[in-house]
């Protein structure tokens, strides 16, 4: 068994440290120490504090070991000579309950180990009256390793090529605390500076007065790097996608005390978190550094925080967008829109297949930051006009302007961007249908989809009712006291009337999703919210206005 002394255990490069390698073989005629006339023998080798212990051979007066022990030399790499060192050998009897009995003890001087690498075989007759009576002996061998290290102690153990780099590093690191960039942190000037900076934040002032001058609660929300006060009515209500700062001022013995909590929703973005933390410190500075700061994470709020809202806190899903620009074109689901018709031109979403294309209509392939406008060879002028309009409205909708590529036919499709867009379509290019196969423009117009499908959402009867509107539905049929869901084929709108109830406003989006699901439409279809009087142009186009 291999046994290692603590010093050796610590070291990684065992083979490089100066140490002794000890092979313990056997002992003979040990005196009996236990009641049964036997001994449980083991041997300890030590140099100074460093020691290594052999295994215990139970109930045997002639124990045999097969231990290989490595004994490190304390401060071995710094020693210049090893003459002072002494190896101590102790033979013990292991006792379970009482202290181990010492059978015998002797020392070896290092003068005996002269040649490195060669084992020094030893059979020692053990000193002590008991042992001498029985003529007991101990048989072991010792090999010195790496003692030449001691001779050349001034040289480093590992000749390394890090040395050059290290020298540079040490130079660089020798900056003193006194003339570095952090010496002034926490100084009076620094604090004064922080207070001045905090005074420049408008949110910390209400009608010209500093906040926190009277007992009570004040809440702010982080909106795109800005701190915005939350209206009093919604105190206790938090969005899980946002971060908030809550200032609690209270009076105790005619003095004001403050607690500042910053609450982080589970889905809050990293910039909101950062700003909340930063601004909390700023508010702390403004109030003279005496407030206590608390970090609250949704679900793990502190008791102090929960006590501020006796009615309990309400957590809503959603929240502000992140302040960081957030474009992920890779994650955008591409879609293919067909533009067809003569008078009433309809835009419908069609499957991403080459076979969806035909030469008689116009198509728009929307891949997030790239738009491919595909015009069939025999499309009508109205369709061409309409598809351009559509492309422009999509372009203006997105924050990052998408690149518009126009492909008249496949002959001009040799650029790399085009091939990328083409790769989104499945099937073969040969699948593109002719104008005839694509169907007559007039026919399409008379089809059901030419009119928008409109559902009414109303709770005027006391129950939420979702009904399909029959007949020719025109724009003026949208009534102010209700909400409507308008399916334009490629997009679904929720139209919210001015006089609609709170529940209608709230659930309009949910009903739109249910509508999509029940009618087998893609759940990724865009749902836009339009309110009465603020209709967007795309919405008005659905009703041909």
């Amino acid at each position: 068994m291999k046994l290692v002394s603590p010093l050796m255990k610590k070291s990684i490069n065992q083979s490089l440290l100066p140490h002794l390698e000890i092979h313990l073989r056997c002992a003979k005629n040990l005196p009996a120490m236990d009641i049964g006339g036997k001994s449980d023998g083991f041997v300890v080798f030590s140099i100074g504090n460093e020691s290594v212990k052999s295994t215990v051979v139970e109930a045997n007066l002639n124990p045999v070991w097969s231990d290989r022990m490595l004994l490190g030399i304390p401060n071995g790499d710094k020693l210049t000579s090893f003459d002072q060192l002494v190896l101590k050998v102790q033979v013990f009897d292991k006792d379970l309950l009482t202290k181990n009995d010492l059978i015998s003890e002797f020392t070896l001087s290092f003068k005996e180990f002269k040649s490195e690498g060669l084992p020094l075989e030893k059979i020692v007759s053990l000193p002590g009256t008991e042992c001498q009576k029985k003529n007991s002996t101990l048989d072991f061998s010792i090999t010195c390793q790496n003692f030449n290290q001691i001779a050349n102690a001034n040289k480093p153990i590992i000749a390394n090529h890090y040395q050059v780099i290290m020298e540079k590093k040490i130079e660089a690191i020798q900056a003193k605390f006194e003339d570095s960039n952090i010496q002034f942190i926490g100084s009076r000037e620094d604090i004064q500076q922080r207070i001045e900076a905090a005074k420049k934040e408008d949110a910390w002032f209400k009608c010209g007065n500093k906040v926190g001058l009277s007992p009570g609660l004040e809440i702010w929300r982080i909106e795109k790097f800005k701190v915005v006060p939350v209206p009093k009515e919604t105190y206790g209500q938090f969005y899980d996608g946002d971060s908030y700062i809550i200032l609690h001022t209270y009076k105790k013995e005619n003095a004001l005390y403050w607690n500042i909590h910053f609450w982080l929703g589970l889905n809050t973005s990293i910039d909101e978190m950062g700003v909340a933390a930063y601004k909390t410190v700023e508010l702390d500075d403004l109030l003279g550094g005496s407030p206590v700061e608390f970090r609250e994470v949704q679900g793990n709020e502190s008791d102090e925080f929960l006590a501020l809202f006796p009615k309990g806190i309400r957590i809503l899903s959603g929240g502000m967008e992140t302040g960081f620009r957030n474009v992920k074109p890779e994650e955008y689901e591409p879609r293919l829109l067909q533009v067809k018709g003569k008078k009433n031109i309809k835009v419908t979403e069609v499957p991403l297949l080459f076979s969806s294309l035909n030469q008689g209509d116009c198509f728009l392939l929307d891949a997030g930051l790239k738009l491919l406008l595909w015009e069939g060879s025999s499309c009508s002028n109205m369709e061409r006009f309409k598809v351009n309009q559509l492309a422009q409205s999509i372009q203006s909708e997105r924050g990052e302007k998408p690149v518009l590529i126009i492909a008249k036919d496949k002959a001009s499709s040799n650029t790399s961007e085009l091939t990328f867009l083409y790769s989104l379509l499945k099937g073969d290019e040969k699948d593109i249908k002719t104008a005839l196969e694509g169907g007559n423009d007039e026919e399409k117009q008379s089809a059901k989809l030419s009119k928008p499908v409109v559902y009414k959402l109303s709770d005027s009867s006391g129950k939420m009712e979702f009904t399909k509107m029959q007949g020719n539905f025109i724009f003026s049929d949208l009534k102010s006291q209700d909400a409507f869901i308008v399916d334009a084929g490629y997009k679904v709108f929720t139209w919210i009337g001015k006089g609609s109830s709170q529940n209608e406003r709230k659930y309009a989006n949910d009903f739109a999703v249910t509508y999509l699901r029940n009618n087998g439409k893609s759940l990724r279809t865009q749902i836009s919210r339009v309110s009465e009087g603020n209709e967007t142009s795309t919405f008005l186009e659905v009703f041909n206005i």
Partner: protein
Amino acid sequence: PSMIGRPKNSPNAVFQPQHEFKCHIGEELHQFPFRYDEFKPIISCGIVQDWDEMIILLEYCLKKVPKFDMQEGKYTRRVVLNEPLLNPIKNKQKWFEILFEYFEFHSLVPQVQPLAALYASGRTTGLVLDVGEDCTQILPVYDGYALSNVMNKMRSWGGRVGGGDLTKFVANLKYESGWEFSNSGREISKKIKERLAYVAPNYWKEVELNAESSQLSRTFELPDKTTITIDDLRFKCGEVLFRPSEFLGVDYVDGGIDDLLINTLLKSPIDCRNDFSNNIVLCGGTALMPGFKERLELEVQSRILPPHLPTPKVNVIQQVESSYLSWIGGAIIGSLGLTTHYIFSREGYMESGVDINRPYSLNLS
């Protein structure tokens, strides 16, 4: 990487001063099969060594910024200077000189890296451990204040071991076992490190396990399609962080990252210790190494016991964003508008020179 290489046999080397050679920067170094002069580190321990090269590097970086027009942008843009801990004042002044006089930026916000990282993790109290490319820094922060007196007490404010040293360790060990990687060697070693290295919870158990079976060994494919087997290197590489003097040589006297962390904790005021051990924020790419977080928790838990810490509750925070946490922090602080403390304006600098401890931010409207 912040490195600049110049081809060795440049035809007009004789006629041109050195800095006008065609040079390759960063990732480009691995794309062009030139023979380069020795790479000189531009930044060592976060402190700039060669300012001429730094300017070349900055210009190159600014060209890569999307939608940034050098001519227009420099007068209107604000720059956040994310500086390392204990950046000498002289060095900081040089930064001001370059950013205001050479690049002519509008204003400048200096910020200490670990503090920025702490804000980005949504905290105001915590112990930030930033394991960088060539150094490690640690900063205790309480309620937004860096405890600089703790730093003053420390013998060393950070370790000298960083991710770059691990790469060199891998390269060195592979070199000794007969794999000589040439120009792209650094890159290969880096890839080995990033893909295969981990930190073992118990080093000696791992050594035994490796000796007994080959379940730890993985193969790695070199660019020429030959594969090499990596076994003990995987956990030795991670162990370098914890015992640098034994792996890298006696010059690394500071001790491992765990020693640094525990030392700082014990030097901190006793009433802050619990908050600190609960909020140890990791930062830097090397901190994302698998097992690093667990090992740190284990070390702190087993080595800090009462009375130093009444109930050792250790929580190390490792985020996906860890590798660029201080950058995010800088970005947040830069976007805050005029309310950040310490804004230096170019006008103020041009009028009255630089006095780093008395900023002109108040003159800024």
